[in-house]
């Protein structure tokens, strides 16, 4: 017994493999947050006045708000005046080809195993790479242009398609929504913008790799994806970050809008620096992600594999407004060492015959805490609404925690809501059984975890699923033997 407990302890002690800092000349906003800083950010980006006004309104609202404390996470108070709210690579220009990109940046990608060239050639993935706050390379743009698909940094969309940005920005997540969404709205630096026109099926996975790269720089991504009537798009988001001691704040906002008969598939592999074995450092990840199924028969599907960050506060949600619309949430959240994750989803059923499906798989190791928090809300008019939720927890060792907080609000008698939950532990008997078949404890844990998370991983695009599986194994890797 004792020996196996030690093994599980060891597994829980894997090192973060992507910890390095690359040197790219930065241009920083002065520390702290006030209207001048917001004007600075807006001026840096040469933004139209509607956006500056919107930022300022968000900032004024934020000042009146309080940081939420209902999540099951603990962290020291954040000094919002001790953060740089803007950092950009210096001499930023629009690059037409990779040759023009700072070789240091390209090397960073190579270390992360994200060769842009390879991806362009092999996977058919258009990569809009966001390094710190400003997009530096956008590929496959021309091919997408032919189809009328817009895929660009949101800072660019502000200039090229201001009418779309003005119409949709904040339409799903208004700045009044929550504390971090308000902060993001005031200071967001950059992010992706996608518009898929009527009837167009985007032929490739759109992908963005985020990377936090400046010391003490909050990262405030803003992503906006619009799928017009009858269109389809699959979007991938993945990230790793360099190792450092100071906690870094990340407060992103993602908004999705699916019109009539449209479908958006949004997949995330999140691997930000989780802090060291003692729980020092690591990213604070306070994200607001929400999709609006605006039209009839629309569909939004969130798939996430969360292995990083010291603190994860994240609830990708669907507002099912259109009749017969469908919302899905598939999640694997892995916590190790001292990581804390409070994650889940909200499914808001407004339209008739709306359907939602939630599959959440939590994995806790080390001394970590992993919570699922989910809301299923069936409004009065949502006749025939249907929800199925499955929330499973897997524990490695006996020092970690798993919690489930399901909230169900039903205001319509015709609704059917189902909730299933299980908690299991990787037992010594299973490990021994696999050992006896020649499989090491480390590989045994990977096999079990992959099997456990299969239903979620299968929802990721192929190449992403491979990466996610690797990430789960790496996150649980340790000196076993």
């Amino acid at each position, binding site marked *: 017994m004792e020996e196996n407990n030690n093994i599980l302890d060891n597994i829980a002690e894997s090192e973060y493999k992507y910890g390095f800092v690359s040197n790219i000349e930065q241009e920083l906003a002065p520390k702290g947050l006030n209207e001048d800083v917001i004007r600075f950010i807006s001026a840096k980006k040469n933004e139209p006045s509607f956006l500056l006004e919107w930022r300022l309104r968000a900032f004024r609202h934020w000042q009146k708000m309080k940081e939420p404390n209902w999540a099951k996470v603990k962290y020291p108070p954040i000094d919002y005046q001790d953060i740089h709210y803007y950092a950009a690579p210096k001499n930023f220009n629009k690059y037409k080809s990779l040759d023009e990109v700072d070789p240091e940046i390209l090397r960073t990608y190579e270390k992360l195993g994200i060769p842009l060239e390879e991806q362009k050639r092999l996977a058919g993935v258009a990569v809009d790479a966001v390094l710190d706050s400003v997009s530096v390379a956008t590929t496959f743009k021309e091919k997408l242009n032919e189809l009328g698909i817009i895929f660009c940094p949101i800072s660019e969309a502000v200039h090229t398609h201001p009418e779309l940005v003005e119409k949709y920005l904040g339409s799903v997540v208004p700045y009044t929504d929550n504390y971090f969404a308000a902060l993001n709205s005031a200071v967001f630096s950059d992010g992706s913008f996608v518009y898929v026109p009527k009837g167009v099926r985007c032929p490739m996975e759109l992908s963005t790799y985020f990377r936090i790269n400046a010391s003490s720089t909050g990262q405030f991504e803003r992503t906006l994806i619009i799928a017009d009537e009858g269109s389809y798009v699959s979007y991938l988001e993945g990230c790793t970050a360099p190792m450092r001691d100071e906690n870094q704040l990340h407060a992103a906002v993602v908004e999705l809008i699916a019109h009539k008969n449209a479908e958006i598939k949004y997949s995330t592999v999140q691997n930000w620096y989780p802090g060291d074995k003692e729980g020092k450092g690591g990213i604070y990840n306070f994200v607001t992600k929400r999709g609006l199924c605006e039209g009839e028969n629309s569909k939004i599907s969130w798939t996430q594999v969360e292995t990083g960050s010291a603190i994860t506060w994240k609830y990708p949600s669907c507002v099912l407004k259109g009749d017969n619309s469908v919302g899905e949430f598939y999640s694997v959240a892995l916590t190790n060492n001292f990581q804390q994750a409070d994650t889940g989803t909200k499914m808001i059923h407004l339209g008739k015959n709306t359907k939602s499906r939630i599959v959440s798989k939590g994995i806790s190791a080390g001394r970590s805490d992993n919570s699922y928090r989910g809301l299923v809300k069936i409004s009065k008019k949502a006749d025939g609404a249907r929800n199925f939720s499955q929330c499973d927890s897997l524990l490695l060792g006996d020092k970690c925690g798993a919690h489930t907080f399901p909230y169900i609000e039903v205001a319509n008698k015709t609704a059917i809501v189902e909730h299933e939950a299980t908690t299991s532990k990787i037992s010594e008997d299973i490990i021994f059984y696999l050992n*006896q*078949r020649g499989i090491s404890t480390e590989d045994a844990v990977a*096999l079990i975890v992959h099997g456990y998370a299969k*239903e979620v991983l299968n929802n990721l695009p192929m190449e992403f699923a491979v990466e996610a599986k690797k990430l789960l194994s790496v996150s649980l890797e340790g000196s076993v033997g």
Partner: protein
Amino acid sequence: MALLSIKNLKAKINETEILHGINLEINPGETHAIMGPNGSGKSTLASVLAGKPGYEVTDGEVLFNGKNLLEMPPEVRAREGMFLAFQYPVEIPGVSNTNLIKSAVNEIRKYRNLEPLDAFDFISMIKEKAAMVEIEQSFLNRSVNLSISSNEVFQMAMLDPVLAVLDETDSGLDIDALRIVANGVNKLRRNDNAFLVITHYQRLLNYIVPDYVHVLYKGRIVKSGGKELALELEEKGYDWIKD
């Protein structure tokens, strides 16, 4: 050289000594049966040989292929060719039997400096081995908690061990399942491998006919003989040994 050589093996669990000095030699091509009443140490012996955590060896030595078995972690014993057929099925949600066996086969191949099998070779191997031990392939895609008899025998065929230990694999099996196990084992018997069949009942030995039978009682082998010893035990009961 003996395939397995156990000398004066003593082992305890939770401070209680269960095995008080076991001596046993198994040569290639032989099938040995260990019988004994409940609590005699049969399963402890199987567990100690496989390296199950929780058991502490306090004395003696075990050589397997001439190597010190007790120094190896469980997965290395498996890769060296030791196979333990389990008494109770282990359930691993979401892990298909095929997936598990593929990992196991490739780990063992890696240990022997062989290339991992690709999907095609693996499927032909499945077909070949399933036919060999006369097991239908349909169960392979299910989760691990399927009928243990077919599963364990099939795994044994796939991993092709040099020494297979069957730890009361027959307990709780009906006659059809018993025949599957016995038939599989008999098909796998060769002159370069060996079997150690641990059982409480004689009936399994009607189907897997052993070369030697040992009676384990209170942590010691108290009697050894040929296959007729099993019949004698069946007739006289374990009380006969206790006298």
